[in-house]
């Protein structure tokens, strides 16, 4: 039976922009794959058509049928993980093995606070600013 595995260092799920995300991935397959790579990316979820931004990719040379490798990525300064009424932006690390398009995904949170930003809660209504006419 085939299986893909993915984990971050110390099983961390929350990161700040600019931080390094590192960890290990592994797979057990019936036969030797042609290629294996891990991608750092964000995607949108919600009402809108899904958009995807692949930030970095790490390819693994000579992948074996049963293998385990480590990975490391530097996070960019944006976008932050957020969730609103219509859109959520989710960061993830994905392992993709070919042929067959096998994949496994691990979701993480990227924001200055380390927590997903909830729209409407964090952007507060404020009193009127000073105006001079």
């Amino acid at each position: 039976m085939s299986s893909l595995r993915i984990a971050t260092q110390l099983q961390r799920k929350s990161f700040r922009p600019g931080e390094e995300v590192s960890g290990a991935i592994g797979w057990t397959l019936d036969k030797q794959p042609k290629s294996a790579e891990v991608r750092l990316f964000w995607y949108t979820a919600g009402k809108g058509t899904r958009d995807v931004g692949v930030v970095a990719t790490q390819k693994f040379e000579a992948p074996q049928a049963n293998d385990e490798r480590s990975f490391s990525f530097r996070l960019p300064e944006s976008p932050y993980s957020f969730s609103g009424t219509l859109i959520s932006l989710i960061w993830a690390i994905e392992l993709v093995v070919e042929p067959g398009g096998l994949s496994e995904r691990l979701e993480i949170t990227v924001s200055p606070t380390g927590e997903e930003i909830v729209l409407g809660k964090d952007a507060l209504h404020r009193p009127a600013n000073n105006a001079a006419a």
Partner: protein
Amino acid sequence: MLNLRFVTMSRPSGIPGRLFGSLFFVFFLGMGVLFLVLTTKEVVKRGETLRWPIVPCTIVSSSVAAEKSSENPFRFAVNYQYQFRGRSYHSQRAELSETRSGNYRDVLRMVERYPEKAQAICYVNPAHPEEAILQRSSFWFALLLVVPIPFIVIGGLGIWAMWQPPTSSLTQPAFSRTVSPRTRSFSLALFFSIFLVAGLAAFAFLVIRPMMKIQQSRHWLQLPCTILSSEVRPHHGDNGTTYSVDIFYQYFANGKEYKANRYSFLTGSSSGYDGKAAVVARYRPGTKALCFVNPADPTEAVLVRRVTPEMWFGLLPTIFAVVGVCGLVYCVRQSRLGKNSSITAIPAGFMAGAQSPPTSDLGGPIELKARISPRMKLVGGLIVALFWNGIVSVFVVHLINGWKHGRGEWFSTIFMIPFVLIGLGLVGFVVYSLVGLFSPRVKLTVSSASALPGARIQFNWTLEGKVQRVSRLQIYFEGREEATYKRGTDTSTDKAVFATIPIVDIQENFRVGSGNAELQVPACAIHSFSSEHNKIIWSLFVKADVTHMPDVKDEFELFVLPQPLAPPMKV
């Protein structure tokens, strides 16, 4: 030490779902195969004539036969005699299929090519010598073989995919696999190219070609002619009946008798009946008229060589061409964006998405431009209204004609009501936008068009135009989500405001003309974000209530930046 998470995913594979899906694709495949078989049979049949031996023949009789009951009333009636393997045969076939036309001249040309008693060649089927033709059919027909191929491929692949066993329990599309914007732009460009080509082709056929003919006919001979028959010819189709003017007339050129049935240079039929009936009434059978004859080819004649009212309808396809051009321009711009900043690869330390803060932001105060200017609103509304009403009007005119002639269709009329209401709404929007051009204009100058959360932006505003009619002015900062998605064939964008920060609210008219204020971006504000279908937009809104005129609501986008990364520590 790393702990690895083991996952096993299952793929749903219900038999009823597969059966339903297969049925859908079988229909596709079946239609494609049926069309391919029929087309191939015809191509093979035409191809076989290439092996038919060429034999001399004598034309016994040749004429134009008129059969009024047919929509293509003129038939090439020919009889020729030939010898094959020592035996004499007669044939009445000019081509594999009957040679017919709605245009008298097309058939007359055949008569002139094969006149009585003339020697010609014919092609004889060696297996059935009683079967012969004067002309081989065109092989352009073989191009139709391409048409069913997409249906067969889609149908075949669909059925194959339905019954493919899952290769692995882990097989699921990787989220990070994306289609590049350039590929998407190419597909879209293909779609708009069809609009453009169809629009231009229709324009060329309905306007350019008749206009060129009108120009050429300026030097034609003006000759007296006798009207032989005159009627409005109906053409029955799937979408109802259309009509054309059918006037058959006789004239003499170079001492020889000719006949023709062309009324004007715009051929074809349309839904209006009354106009055609009025034309027919002017050309009663037996009456004399003047017709214009091509001196170089006296078989070519026309009754009216001026621009007829029907020709103005030829301008309608230009709407399709305009839509095609606008779409292609959009595609080229998208493709350039894709070249410069693909959403699939974001440079580290830069804002997500294609949009970046304006470069002009570096040198102090700048005047912002409204996201949608009143002129853009008017032009956009006008294009949509013309496009929508152009299409709807074709059906409405057809329905009105039906009612006028006692053939009203209740179901079609009720069906069209919502489409007409939408069209009227669009016309209303265009009128509203037009009046809106005369509402006061807003000028907004800001100290910076982009800011970090917590930063302050100074701005000043000026209203121009009919400021005395402004009863209230509000300026507020708003953050909203925009999600674009497809529902069926429609693309919709939903918006949700998550933050509104009032800044200015003035109800005294003497104070609204100009002023300045300060905006503080909330410290916890999410940064601006723009990907292809999803956006976080921060904007300053200037809203003016205007008496007896459309209110002003202009939006000026500002960019909230993400917190810059801390510089790397020096060791």
